[in-house]
């Protein structure tokens, strides 16, 4: 299903941090993983990933290192820092709260579980 890109743009930082929390990755790998996990729903304009990564790096939420590929090229890998993990936690809670409230408005409040006798 195609979605409005504006829905994605606000969540990109959360998605990137979540990917990096699972292990270090390089830029193209992040794009591919994101597309695969979301069944091609989340397809970023790939160039826009790098300003996000560089901004996270300047804030100390991720750090990078150059590593040699089997082909002899140098590739830049990113990994999350402790500060980035804290930001991920905040962003996750923020998203959870936001999406619950959107759901409440669009679908009505979720039924409360019945009390257990």
């Amino acid at each position, binding site marked *: 299903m195609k979605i409005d890109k504006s829905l994605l743009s606000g969540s990109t930082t959360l998605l990137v941090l979540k990917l990096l929390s699972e292990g270090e990755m390089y830029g*193209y790998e992040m794009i591919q993983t994101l597309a695969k996990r979301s069944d091609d729903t989340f397809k970023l*304009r790939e*160039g826009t990933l*790098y300003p996000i990564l560089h901004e996270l790096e300047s804030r100390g939420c991720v750090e990078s290192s150059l590593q040699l590929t089997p082909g002899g090229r140098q590739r830049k890998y990113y990994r999350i820092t402790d500060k980035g993990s804290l930001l991920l936690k905040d962003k996750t809670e923020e998203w959870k709260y936001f999406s619950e409230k959107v759901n409440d408005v669009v679908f009505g409040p979720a039924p409360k579980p019945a009390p257990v006798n």
Partner: protein
Amino acid sequence: MTDWLYEASSYIYYEPDRRRVRRELQEHLEDAALALHESGLDWDSAKIKAVEAMGDPKEVGMLLRHVHKPWLGWIYKLAGMFCVACLVLCIITFINNTWTGLRFELEYLRREVPTGAELVNYPSFESFEGTYTSLAPSGKVKCGDYTFQITEAILASDPSWEKDRLCFVLSYSSPRFWLGKPILGNYLRAEDSSGREYDIYFAYPNLPESPTEDMMSCSDIYWVEGFDSMDKHTLQVYRSSFARGEWVLSLPVEADTQWVDIIYEFDRSFDIRIDLRKGGGKA
């Protein structure tokens, strides 16, 4: 691919960051193009699709510029321009000074050091009609960074004078060619065999030509630049850039004087004796 890369990265003003980001984006494009090629596309189509997937280079570039400290880029550019301006100024100054130095050096090499009778009235250039006796030049004397030597000395006589005059050329040189002239100042004096002392004064074209009694006059080697409104010579000093040169000195001596010591006392000292009894010949 190159066009996209250069356009997107051109928005980063800070050159070192711009190079790093361009390299990273290039790796991404190459990975993307390779993946597309492996999925069945030909290389050209794979590259085109890889570039399309990156998005608008201007949009990406503006986002990158926002992250990569534009103010740092401006400082970097300004610093670069300042360095270039300083370098150009240094080159111009170096060429100008070198040219000036070379001109002075050529003039210095063509200089004519006064000899014989020319020493008597130097630097006034008036001819001397009296007689003189050549005296033996001295050996070389090392003093600090310099070597001094009296290369020529005469004892001049004229019936109109009360006293004879000892006139000599004191030369200096140094292997440390970057040094300037040694400081003579008031540190050079003379003392004769009867204990009379002579302080130094520096003769310039606009000072009285007649030396003060009991003083030793000292002149650089000059060349005539022209004449002033009073029809007097205007003089320029010959100047070497390589720590060498001469002075012409002159002092009155009593009839009973047997020798004169030329004494220099500054940081270091030397003492050169001119023996008035050892002549080299009359003229």
